[in-house]
Structure formats: C-alpha cells, structure tokens
C-alpha cells in the first residue's frame, strides 16, 4: 500500500477498496495500528477487536475477488458505541453490571453496516448506560478530547466522537437520547446526526430511555454522515417503533444548495450561551443567507421546558429499562443471604453514581400518587414542545441553534455538579422530546480555539433538507486551526 487511508473520507476509502486500489485488510490493518499507537492517551475504545476486524475485512476482500458487490461502505472502518450489542463480543455499556456478558445476537445496525461492507474496529467508550455529557461516567475511565487531552469529548457517545475526530476511524455509530451524538460531535469538531425517531431500528441498542433513544452516525463530513445514515436507516420488523416508510435518499439532493429555503434561528436557544458560540451561530446563519436562504429569528417558546420534562421522562423509562440488571441471569452477581439481598448487593456494586441517581429519580417520578404530577405532566410538556416546533415549521423548512452552550470543558469541571452537567444538553434535548431529526456540524472555534458546533433541526423525516443545509454550512465553515493531540 503506497497511500495512507488515515484521515481519508469514508466515501473515498470505499471507492479505493471497490476499485481494488487498496484492500479492505490493508485499510483495517492501518487503522488498527494507528489506534493501537494513539488510543492509550485518548481512551476512545473500551475494546478493540483486532481479530474480528481483520476477518471481517477479509470477507469484504473475498467478495470483491468473487466479483460481488461489497457494499457502499466496502472496507471502511467503523467504531461502535458499546451500547450496541455485538454477537459473541463483550458489550458493557461502560458498566460493571454487564461484566462478562457476551450477547448472543447482533444489533440490526451492526448487521446493516456489516452488510454494507464496513468493518467494525471495536467498541467505544461512553457514559455508563449513555447517562452523561462528558464520558466521565464510564466505569472504565474517561475518554479525552482529541484537541485537548485535559478536556472532555462530551457524551455520552464521547468515545465514538473522539475516535472519529482523532482519525482513528472515519466513521462511528452512537446513540442520542438527549444530545449524546450531537453534543460530543460539537465538542470534538465533527459531524453527528440524530435521525427522526423510528428512522433507524433500535433493535440491539441497549435501552436508556426507549421513547427518546435513536442511533445515528458520526463522520468528519456531512456527506459521510449521510452515507452512513443511508445504510442504517429503514424499517425493521424487529422494532415496533421503526417507521414503515422507506428511508429517503439522503445524498441525492445534498449539493442542491439552500436557495429559497426558509431557515429560522431559535431565539430561546441563543440566550445564555457563551458569547463566541452565539457569534458562530449568527455567522453560520449569515453564510446561509449569503447562499440564498431566507433567514429569520423565530421563537419556539416551549423548548425552555425541555430539560425539566426530559429529566422526568428519561429517568422514568430508565428506571424500568435498567431493572433487568438484577444479578439473576447475566452480568455481575453479588450473592446475598436471599433473593432481595442479592438484588441490592448486585445493583449497588454494579451501577455507578449517575445511573443510581437517575434510577431513583425515575422510580420516584412513576410512584403511585406522584405519577400525574411528574411523569404525566412531563408528557404534557412533551406535547407542548411538539406543537411549539410545529408552529415554527409552518413557516420554516429548518431551524438553527447552537448545539451546546459552551465548547469542551475540562475534565472534572462538572463532575460534582450534576445540574450544570445536565445543562450541556439544553439545546439538544427538545429535538429528542419531539422525535425530530437534528445534526451538529463544526462551525468556528471558541475559548482556547476549541471547536464550536452548530445545530440544524428539521421536522420529522426532514432529513433531506437538513443535510442540504448542513452541506451548505460546511462549505462556508472556517477550517479548524487547532491541532489534534498527535499532530
């Protein structure tokens, strides 16, 4: 192999592999070696599955040798957030409670990327059970921001974001319940997409909050993110909440520009963000205006209540989803004198502090006598948010906001203050409550030259316009001047 594929776009790698200019095995070997030499500092992976990756790469090469179609992601390395189940490979959710568990099946998205020829390098770090905004809640230790190892990569999909940003992998999958793809994408200076709820099958995604969870792509370009989303989108009979309608063609219109599109800047989400983050957003809006879009400010008043509603609904669902980790069937068991003591001891030892906090919060919110005041009311707020967005989308094709209120913060800065940590997701949460798509892409730099993310929001199944706008923004975005930790 004469050329290096490190840092190359996924679409380019697939093209080279398909045209036999480079083999899938060569691509994967190079990425495995690169990850081996850099991930000790970054800690983006929990587990790098070298052997499985190489044998999967060989399968792709054999397909090509036989003249079969190897798929649109032929030979492209991909990193999988470790809450996606992989057959026969440890899947931990970064929790001690799943210690030793090897799933007997693959998540639907894992099957889909494999069928498209992508090669999984391994499982990436996350906040335990995807609960957190910095990846510091991992029981395997934190992941670092590839632009500054003293800062967090965001979370909960911090491992996937950092791996892609640091060029350890061109693509990654994450999950987004309240911003867990978009927020780390913003903090790491890459593209992250939360698709419409139901566009991507959740089968095999270990649930945090079922009505909000959605799997989505990380990439270093808008096009690569659309390419990966195209592969994983579509109806799955194994997921009852998966949409019946076929996934739209996301790449076809991506270069059409924004001429004539109506784009609204959400007023409520500019208030209170760091000055440079606000400025970057306005610059981004101006850039779209210069390309022919109609830009206006719009009020979506209900988004202000998103955070409060989210921190009732998500923990409530989590308290039920995480009940099964009881030491009886798999994972960690700490024996007690009787059944109840075994439950208590296993769960006390197996879960970290943030997970316990949310289980308790959710259990309380669902308790008899409190249900209406908490969970019931939060569901009504959710309806309000959907209606509020709907009014805005009556006048606008897409909306813009910052992805996060600040750039990446230092490790440990918010660990002791859960509320300030929760506020990191204030701009991303309303989208999950509405079930709409939204994505983050880098636009400018803030404090210490750390990357800033801009969020593009669209109505349900509005991915085509969302990618068009994101692509136009990408064309006008300044290049990130700050160097990666290994550069």
């Amino acid at each position, binding site marked *: 192999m004469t050329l290096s594929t490190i840092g190359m776009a996924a679409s380019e790698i697939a093209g080279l592999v398909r045209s036999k200019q480079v083999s899938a095995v060569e691509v994967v070997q190079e990425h495995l070696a690169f990850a081996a030499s850099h991930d000790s500092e970054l800690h983006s992976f929990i587990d790098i599955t070298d052997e499985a990756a190489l044998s999967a790469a060989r399968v792709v090469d054999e397909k090509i040798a036989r003249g079969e179609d190897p798929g649109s992601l032929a030979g492209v390395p991909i990193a999988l957030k470790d809450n996606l189940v992989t057959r026969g490979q440890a899947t931990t959710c970064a929790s001690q409670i799943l210690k030793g568990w090897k799933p007997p099946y693959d998540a639907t998205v894992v099957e889909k990327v494999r069928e498209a020829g992508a090669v999984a390098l391994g499982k990436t770090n996350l906040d335990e059970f995807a609960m957190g905004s910095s990846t510091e809640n991992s029981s395997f230790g934190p992941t670092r921001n590839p632009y500054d190892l003293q800062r967090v990569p965001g979370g909960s999909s911090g491992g996937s974001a950092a791996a892609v940003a640091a060029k350890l992998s061109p693509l990654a999958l994450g999950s987004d319940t309240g911003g867990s793809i978009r927020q780390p994408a913003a903090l790491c200076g890459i593209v992250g997409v939360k698709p419409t709820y139901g566009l991507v099958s959740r089968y*095999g995604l*270990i649930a945090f909050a*079922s009505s909000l969870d959605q799997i989505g792509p990380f990439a270093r370009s808008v096009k690569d993110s659309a390419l990966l989303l195209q592969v994983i989108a579509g109806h799955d009979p194994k997921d*009852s909440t998966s949409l019946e309608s076929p996934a739209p063609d996301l790449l076809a219109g991506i270069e059409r520009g924004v001429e004539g599109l109506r784009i609204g800047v959400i007023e409520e989400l500019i208030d209170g963000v760091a000055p440079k983050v606000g400025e970057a957003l306005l610059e981004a809006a101006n850039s779209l205006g210069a390309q022919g879009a109609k830009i206006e400010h719009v009020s979506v008043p209900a988004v202000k209540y998103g955070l409060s509603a989210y921190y009732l609904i998500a923990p409530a669902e989590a308290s039920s989803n995480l009940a099964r980790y009881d030491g009886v069937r798999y994972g960690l068991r700490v024996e007690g004198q009787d059944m109840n003591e075994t439950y208590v001891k296993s769960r006390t030892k197996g879960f970290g502090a943030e997970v316990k906090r949310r289980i308790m919060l959710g259990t309380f919110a669902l308790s008899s006598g409190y249900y209406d005041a908490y969970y019931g009311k939060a569901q009504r707020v959710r309806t309000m948010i959907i209606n509020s967005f709907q009014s805005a989308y009556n006048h606008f094709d897409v909306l813009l906001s910052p992805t996060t209120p600040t750039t990446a913060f230092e490790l440990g800065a918010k660990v002791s203050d859960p509320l300030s940590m929760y506020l990191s997701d204030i701009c991303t949460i309303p989208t999950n409550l509405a079930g709409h798509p939204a994505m983050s892409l880098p636009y400018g730099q803030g404090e210490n030259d750390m990357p800033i993310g801009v969020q593009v929001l669209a109505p349900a199944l509005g991915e085509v316009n969302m990618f068009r706008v994101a692509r136009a923004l990408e064309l006008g975005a300044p290049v990130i001047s700050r160097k990666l930790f290994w550069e």
Partner: protein
Amino acid sequence: MVESSSSSPSQSEFIPGWEIVVGLEVHCELKTNTKLFCGCANAFGREPNTSVCPVCLGLPGSLPVINEHAVELAIRIGLALNCKVDESIFHRKNYFYPDMPKDYQISQYEKAINENGYLELPLSKKRVRIERAHIEEDTGKTTHVGGDGGRIHGAIHSLVDYNRAGIPLVEIVSAPDLRSAEEAREYVTELRAILVASGASDGKMEEGSLRVDANVSVRRSGSAEFGTRCEIKNLNSLRSLVRAIGYEAQRQVELIESGNAVVQQTRHWNEDQGVTTAMRSKEEAYDYRYFPEPDLVPLAPSAEWITEIGSRIGMMPSDRRERLISMFETAPSGSTFDQIVTAVSLGLDDLVTGAVRNGADARLALARAANEVASDIDHLANINPKTFGELIRMEAGGKLSATQAKKVLGTMLESGEGPQNVAESLGFEALDTSIIEGFVGQVIAASPKEWERFAAGEDQLAGFFVGQVMKLSKGKADGKIVTAILRSKRS
C-alpha cells in the same frame, strides 16, 4: 377432569346470616403457535429453557413485537364475552422477581382491548359483568428446591424455566357479582366452555392454561356495603376454587364474629391442608409504577377486522346447549340439563348431535357422552359420531345391555375400534330373540309351579325367570328382552 355441574352444597358455602361476594380474575393462555412478542414456540412440557430467545429472555437491546394471532384470539374472547373491543395500549407493570426476565411485565392497564362485557350463567341465566379482558405476557416458572412442598420457605435454591415467559395471556376480570363458591364454579365452567368454543384456549386447568385468582369478601345478608376483600392466588382446579372460597369465607366470618376485622391481603391456597395463608398485606403491596410501554405502539384493530373475526367465531356454549335441547320433545330439566351443560363445557356436543343424526337416541347418547366419554375425555379422538352412534343404536335396540354398552364404550375409547368388533371380542354379541325364546321355554318347563304363579299375576317372580335365563345364556341375554318374552307368553 369431570365435575358435575349439579350443585352439591358444601357446608362452607352457606353460612346463615352472611353473604359471600366473589370476583374472579381468570388468566387464560392463548392457543397461539408462538409467544406474544417473539417467534419462540408456545409449547407446554418442553425441556426447561429450550423455547427462549433474546426477546423473551429480556436480553439487553431486545424489543417486543406483538403477535397478530394473539390479538385476534384476544378479540375473539372479547366478542364471545360481549365486550366492547377498542383501541388499547400496553403498559409496563414493574416489580422484581427472578421469573420475570425484564423485571417488568408487559400488560394492559388503562385501556384494555376488551371492556364492559358479561357472561350469562347457564342455569340461573344470571349475568356476571366482565369488567375487562386484557392481553399480557406470562412469566417464567420458578421451582424452589429443598423447601417445604416446592414453596420458597426454606428452599436451598430456586430454578427458573423461561419457556413460559412471554406466552400470551388474556386476563378476564369479572365484577364482584358472584355470590357463592358454587356460582364461582359455574362461572369458571362456563367461561372455560366459551374459551374452548371460541378457539382461543385449550382450557386445560391441570396444565395451567387457565389459572384463577379469587377476590373474596363477606357481608351480613341484606347489607349493601362490600366487606374487606382478600385475594386468593393461583387456584388451579375447580375443586380448589370451591374449597378455597368456602374456607376463606368461613375464615372471614369467624374473624368478624369474634370481633376482629378482615385485613386486605393477598393469600395463598394450601391444597393439602385446605387452608389459605397470608402472602402479603395491602401495606406490603407492590407499587407497580405502571407507565405506557414505549417499545410498543397502540393496538388499533380496524372495525373491519373485528367484524371479520366475529364472523369466524364458532358456536358459543349457549347456542350449543340450545341445539342439544332442541333434540328433545319436552324441554329437558334436572339431570338431563346438567348432562347438556357438561357435554357442552367439555366440547362433546358435536359428538352427541352427530350420533343423533346417525339414528341414535338423543337421551341415551347424551347420557353416555356426559358420563362415560367425559370420564375418559383424553381419548375422545378414538371415537366419532358414527361409531358412537352405532354403539347407542346397539344399546337402544337391545343388542347390548347397559352394563355391556358401557364396557364396549370404554374399550372403544381405549383402542379406537368400532362397537361391533369390541362387542364381539368381549363376547357381548347379543343373542338372537329366537334363542332367548328357546331358553325361556326350557326354564318354564323346568319350573312349572313358579310359572303357574307368575301367570296368575305374581309379577315379582319375573326376576327368578330372568335369572334362570341369564344362567342358561351365560349372561348374554338382555334382561329387558327376557322380561318382554315372559310377559308375552303369560298373556
């Protein structure tokens, strides 16, 4: 299992000055091929943990997908119980127990698929209100090893079989409209008949296809207020149901009469000792933290589908009883009506009507079905309306005595052979009338004095002559025919 529906009041059923109030929750396993939310086989009696997958084991990342056939069977039950079938949603019922893989059960809580129906009791025609009949998943089965009679108390360890986890159930909840243990039995018997007739369940209580929880309270006769109730869990036979209600009512009356109060409790029925014991009180009751199941979408059966399902439901027990009743010239009552109820509840009515179409006598066919066939119901497949009808004709025509006919029927059920062959091989071939006449002649000749007295009107001597003929014929003569010949010779 055969239990006559005729009342045999037990002493516990009637407590002077008191009234028993019972509401029943009947869990019915649906006769689907696969489980409620996955493709695993819905099979009884397999090796433990061989009919399981990531979904019914509740493995991390798995998701439920509703089984359409289960919904159809649930709708059949709703229609058969005169319920309103409507859009419904699933809820999660959260509590920790090892036999529940997810530590929550997917059930219906606020909006059940079937609501506000009724069941009409066959004897009294009383309507028992059905509050709801909702869909839910079954749990696995826990076996406690080393304890007291399989109970958790003192057990060394427990084994869980998840084959049953995720089997579709419909829970049928009655209003507290039943007023005695016997009425509760009548209700369950009729409900079982409806479930079997609608094709939704095999109705086998002994295999756990039907499980009953009884809410029991007592109040002074004439009182309009309900007393405090106790729920008795998992009554697995009609006998247990009747005994448990009787015991529990007696216990509550004794408590109140001795100046104590009934405490709202969930109680366990101990079959061996014939008593109920406390499991947990209201204060210890679980907070199930119900909330809408986010992994499933609302169930919205279309009106067309419901109509179509309704058109495919088989005849209901009340219609089946009417069909049997119509075979009699005068409306049957007493034991014949009981036999009709039994035949229908065990699904034997097609056998009876088929036999009658083949020329059999209705009353005799019904009696043999409700008694002899019912007591060997597992071998029902060995007979059919034709062979059964032929047997009834042979008995009615005097070719077989009643005792012989019962024996032949028993052998038919065991072997599947036809009545002619069985009768022959048992040596029951009825004798030709001319041969019997010959025996009668011999007996008269041998006992001329007795014959003179019989001819003069001493009727009780008939037995003597019949006995003598039986001896000569080695028991093959039909007593009724012998008597008839004797009478004809006298005149």
